[in-house]
């Protein structure tokens, strides 16, 4: 079943849902990157919760106009309008009051959602069974999705992706360094607006598949995941799109392969799996790599400090330093320095003296700036330069280099 689903063999609707979810994932992942890089990831939470009153009002208006109220395009239009109003409220609160952005986000999302819930109960009283379709916007529901709905989602996702491809350069610039972008004459405010517009579009398109509570995950998790693998913002955008698309596709396939596997949560959990893998395993920014690096670094610091203390005849206070020295064969178990320990200690002290000389010498300014207590002097000066320095400080006697 799962393989069938992966190969888009599960029928027309499932295929459309899978394509829609993939496009949605790509669009959400890359759009979310711009928010994430601007440190405004949770703005998406306010936007998504703010869609609820719009959905309800659109339904009520359509019913009032004589329709059955479940036209997806109409509902999405309503959600977009109320999300936009929510965003305006948020920005107004941040700019015109002393409230910080997090408080403004929380206020907007909870108040709009609360008002949406009020409207839902109003709709419940309007007529029997009418609201059933609306509640699915909370958590998404692809079961029994109409072909036309799937089409709307697929097209919406495609349009969002196309917009990102079109706007990626200016948006990257603005997300990366808004001041610089402004100085270069880019219309930062308008690009910001476009960015928020895209977030809104993604949210609205995602309502039907993952629901308004979980769409946030698709905007946040892929960028955070992608960030582990690269330092380049344009690559983050690309990778985040990939992670999002992958999660959307695999999630939709898994969901289609068995009953009781709701699409939205599965997609979110697939992307969370990608995130956990990246958090732990990514080279560079990953947790394991960072831990190993830290342990290595700690060892270097302690060894270096221990050697300097040995060389200067100072007592060693740290038990860890002593243990590391012992393990490296630099001191004997009774604490006295070994032959090797003495030689290394002498070299460490001599290097420290060399550094001292280098750092007070204006001619070595560039090299001196690299001093951090650990760096080997051989990595910043040539052999001739070191010899020159040694002449200045009197040079070592009887110490192997």
């Amino acid at each position, binding site marked *: 079943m799962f393989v069938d689903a992966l190969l888009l063999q599960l029928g027309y609707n499932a295929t459309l849902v899978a394509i829609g979810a993939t496009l949605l994932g790509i669009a959400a992942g890359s759009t979310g990157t711009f928010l994430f890089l601007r440190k405004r990831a949770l703005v998406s939470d306010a936007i998504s919760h703010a869609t609820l009153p719009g959905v309800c009002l659109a339904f009520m208006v359509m019913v009032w106009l004589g329709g059955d109220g479940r036209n997806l395009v109409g509902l999405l239009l309503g959600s977009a309008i109320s999300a936009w109003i929510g965003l305006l409220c948020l920005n107004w609160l941040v700019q015109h009051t002393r409230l910080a952005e997090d408080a403004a986000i929380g206020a907007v999302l909870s108040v709009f959602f609360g008002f949406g819930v009020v409207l839902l109960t109003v709709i419940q009283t309007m007529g029997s069974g009418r609201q059933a379709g609306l509640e699915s916007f909370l958590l998404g529901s692809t079961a029994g999705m109409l072909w036309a709905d799937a089409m709307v989602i697929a097209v919406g996702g495609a349009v969002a992706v196309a917009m990102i491809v079109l706007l990626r350069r200016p948006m990257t610039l603005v997300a990366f360094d808004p001041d610089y972008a402004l100085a270069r004459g880019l219309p930062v405010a308008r690009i910001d607006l476009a960015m928020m517009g895209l977030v809104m579009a993604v949210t609205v398109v995602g309502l039907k598949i993952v629901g308004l509570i979980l769409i946030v995950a698709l905007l946040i998790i892929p960028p955070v995941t992608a960030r582990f693998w690269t330092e380049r913002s344009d690559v983050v955008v690309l990778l985040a799109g990939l992670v999002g698309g992958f999660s959307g596709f695999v999630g939709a396939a898994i969901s289609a392969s068995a009953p009781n596997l709701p699409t939205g949560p599965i997609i979110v959990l697939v992307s969370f799996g990608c995130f956990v893998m990246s958090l732990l395993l990514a080279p560079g920014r990953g947790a394991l790599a960072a831990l190993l690096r830290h342990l290595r670094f700690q060892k270097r610091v302690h060894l270096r400090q221990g050697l300097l203390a040995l060389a200067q005849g100072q007592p060693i*206070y740290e038990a860890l330093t002593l243990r590391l020295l012992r393990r490296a064969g630099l001191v004997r178990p009774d604490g*006295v320095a070994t032959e090797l320990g003495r030689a290394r200690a002498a070299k460490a002290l001599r290097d420290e003296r060399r550094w001292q000389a280098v750092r007070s010498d204006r001619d070595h300014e560039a090299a001196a700036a690299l001093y951090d207590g650990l760096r080997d002097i051989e990595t910043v000066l040539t052999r001739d330069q070191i010899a020159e320095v040694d002449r200045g400080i009197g040079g070592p006697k009887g110490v192997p280099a």
Partner: protein
Amino acid sequence: MSIELIASQGTVATPDRPTDSPLAIRGLTVSYGQKPAVFSVDMTVQPGAMTAIIGPNGAGKSTLLKAALGIVRPLSGQVQVFGAPLARQRARIAYVPQRASIDWDFPTRVIDVVLMGLYRQLGLLRRIRGVHRDRALTCLDRVGMRDFADRQIGQLSGGQQQRVFLARALAQDADLYLLDEPFAGVDAATEKAIIGVLKSLRAEGKTVVVVHHDLATVRDYFDNVFLINTSKVAEGPVSTAFTSETLQATYGGRLATVQVDQLAATALA
């Protein structure tokens, strides 16, 4: 210069070695990430004196102070305050953080900030009484801010904020005062007021340590200097440790020659 190698008895030395120094630091290394901000620093602060910690930007001055106070965790090293571990001597230390590290929009008044200095006396639940309020007002008086006691802290100028912080430290009634860049971005009147208070503290036998950035005033303000650029460069009385050589070693090429020569000239005068 030959390098003597003393075969060390590499046993773990007892950290409780008695010392009467108000602040004794041994082998302190602090790093943010993969680069030590402070490397293997020893420091012994002289009691009853005013010491300036000096070094270029990013040389680890504030980090040294924060590690001494237990605000950041060191990678290695020991800190002793009046001959005992820091945790037992908290009541004897007063601290003035950098002004920029605070959210000045916080809803509180000047007097409330100064009363925070009495936290160790008040504890969780003891009521604030007239004596406490009087003490806070006296401290505000010493920094010339008594009239501002009921102002919201966000309404103060930078210099006034700095003076309120100093008043809070005074309220702590400590023996060792640690100040992080108290003169950064303040007006001349404030600078004068602060240095006056610090000198009166010294006259009372208190020890004062200041992270300082203005080389021109070092000689006027301080007894001792501690020069740092990641590792310690020099430590001692201004007359011997604050020289053109030590400055050159601390600042390297970052200090213009003219400046060094000027400072050296004042050093000789």
